């Protein structure tokens, strides 16, 4: 007595292909193809505008929208009048951006680290509201921050005129939160055990901060410096509201006003330079991070360092 078992049901050509495709996607043991496709589409989608902008900085002609041939140097230093090297306005803007980002980084990071330490170690009443208020600059629309900072400098801090100083103070106000969030996340994952161990071994609070906590926090400090630099160098709203005029123009302000009048690819060039600088900063921070945490890594777990450095755990 034989029983015939149909192992593969018959399908038409298209139904068969469709079935195969569904199988391809559904197969739990196969590569996550759908996920990979979506990820790559997203990556390309986000990176295309940057690539286009940088590409036009190499345009041989004067248009920022029509490709007129390749010229590697014209808008960087080749053109005697309009290149970044020969346009004092663009250079001033670049310096202003770098100055703001650098100062912001150097001022906001130490303050933010101390604040994170305080918030992480704060026990008792007031801890939760303080932690929530810390997020305020992040959730406030930037334009609101900009306007209110402008008003504050206009009516409260009357002794500070709209100037580079005001711009730095404004950006520091805004970026401290980022430092706090990154560093506090790291502190939470470090926990209290290393400090307790240090105290147990006779270290004073200062020693335990200096010799134990600081080295362990360093990756997070570097990461937050990087973040502050990145959000500060392309800040438009606050820099604009607290600007003292042409002398305080940053690259984003310059780019914005230039595109309103007669844009040249030198604008793309200066924007591209900013991208290079930011990438350089990230790379530097990454190399430093790898160097500083070389002991913490277990062998075979070396990759993914950048992700680790940037990872923020919200506890």
């Amino acid at each position, binding site marked *: 007595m034989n029983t015939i078992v149909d192992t593969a049901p018959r399908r038409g050509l298209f139904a068969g292909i469709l079935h195969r495709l569904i199988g391809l996607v559904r197969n739990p043991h196969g590569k996550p193809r759908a996920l990979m496709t979506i990820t790559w589409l997203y990556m390309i989608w986000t990176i295309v505008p940057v690539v286009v902008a940088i590409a036009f900085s190499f345009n041989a002609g004067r248009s920022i929208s029509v490709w007129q041939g390749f010229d590697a140097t014209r808008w960087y230093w080749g053109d005697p009048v309009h290149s970044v090297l020969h346009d004092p306005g663009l250079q001033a803007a670049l310096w202003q951006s770098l100055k703001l980002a650098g100062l912001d980084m150097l001022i906001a990071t130490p303050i933010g680290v101390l604040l994170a330490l305080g918030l992480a170690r704060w026990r008792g009443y007031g801890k939760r509201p303080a932690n929530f208020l810390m997020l305020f600059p992040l959730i406030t629309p930037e334009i609101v921050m900009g306007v209110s900072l402008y008003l504050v400098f206009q009516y409260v801090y009357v002794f500070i005129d709209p100037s580079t100083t005001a711009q730095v103070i404004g950006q520091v106000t805004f970026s401290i939160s980022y430092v706090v969030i990154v560093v506090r996340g790291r502190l939470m994952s470090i926990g209290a055990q290393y400090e*307790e161990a240090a105290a*147990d071994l006779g270290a004073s609070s200062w020693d335990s901060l200096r010799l134990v906590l600081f080295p*362990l926090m360093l990756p997070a400090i570097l990461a937050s410096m990087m973040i502050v630099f990145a959000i500060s160098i392309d800040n438009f709203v606050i820099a604009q509201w607290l600007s003292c005029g042409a002398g305080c123009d940053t690259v984003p302000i310059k780019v914005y006003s230039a595109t309103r009048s007669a844009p040249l690819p030198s604008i793309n060039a200066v924007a591209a330079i900013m991208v290079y600088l930011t990438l350089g900063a990230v790379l530097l921070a990454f190399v430093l991070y790898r160097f500083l945490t070389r002991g913490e890594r277990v*062998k075979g777990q070396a990759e993914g360092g950048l992700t680790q450095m940037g990872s923020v755990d919200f506890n």
Partner: protein
Amino acid sequence: MTQGTNGTIQLVDLTKRFGDHLAVDGINMDIPSGEFFSMLGPSGCGKTTTLRMIAGFEQPDTGRIVLDGQDMVHSPPNKRPVNTVFQNYALFPHLNVFDNVAFGLRRGRISKDEVNRRTNEALELVMLGDLGDRRPSELSGGQQQRVALARALVLKPAGLLLDEPLGALDAKLRRQLQIELKSLQERVGITFIYVTHDQDEALTMSDRIAVMNEGQVEQMGSPREIYEAPETAFVADFLGASNLMDGVAHGRDDHGRCRVTVGDHELVAALGQSDVNGPGKVTIRPERVQLERPGTADNHENRIEGEVERSIYIGSAFQLIVRLNAGCTIEVEIQNSGCHETFEIGSRVVAYLPPDALRVLPEKRARSQGAPAVARASDTERTGKREETTEPSTEKTDTGRTARQAQA
């Protein structure tokens, strides 16, 4: 590294409350110099909190922690002459093994040569002399544990506090390190206070054990006393290997034994306290139960009929699970002498619970400042030592006296 006479640690009426939760509830302990003392109990019993209070990481609500006559309660952890081996070791990941061990020494005013000498000495002591330049992440769990030990011992503390230091290791390594730890303790002669939830670990290594439950000490004594003469149902249960039956005690009979009913069966128990009334636990060790065929015994004293539910052959013995008519199951262990009759699963048997193997335990220790005065006064335990059972009360006056001396 021997300390001579210092390293005595006394805890006097120590309490600690976290919010509504009373984590440590009036603990008194007196740990002499050089003793390997264990705090044993389930998680949440307050043992770790007690240890953290001794280390200085938690501030007790009331009570005193007296080290060699000095009250330490108000000194910060870095000023206390005790060191801790943490459960997860808490080795500094950014420092190599040598720097980890030298960390404490470098905090004091000690010359560089001395630091190097003592660090190497400590590393030799834990057999890690050649791994000084490794990072903690490059070591195995057992090696990390030894680094943690060396890091604490190098400071020659008056007391070493160990918070489940073997908890993260596998069983084989744990047994090996238990022996090493014990011999190390005997070598250095430092008072060890060891926190664990593993009764085997505590029994193997300790000179004395305090069994803790719900923030209080249930029983304190040598491993043998704790294991063989548990004073409360909790202790008997926690140390395992004992049958616990629910019963109701009815006080002493004419022969000074305790009358107790289990289900509707009346039993007499001769071990432990006899002047017990009310609900409690009746315990008997599996190897003391005798099984008989129904109708072979000449009287009915302490005999309960039952049925064999399971029979497990474990080589040297048979382990039988017997469901008694009294409504509970007990474990019976019969030595495999090679010729005895076997009891089939499902066969009817009579379990004889000899009075001199039966013990009645109150449900919980009577809570009046740690020691149940009434129960102790009437203690007629045959196997236990009387002086041991009265110890907590003398201890109280002891600590009181030393505390007064300390104040003077």
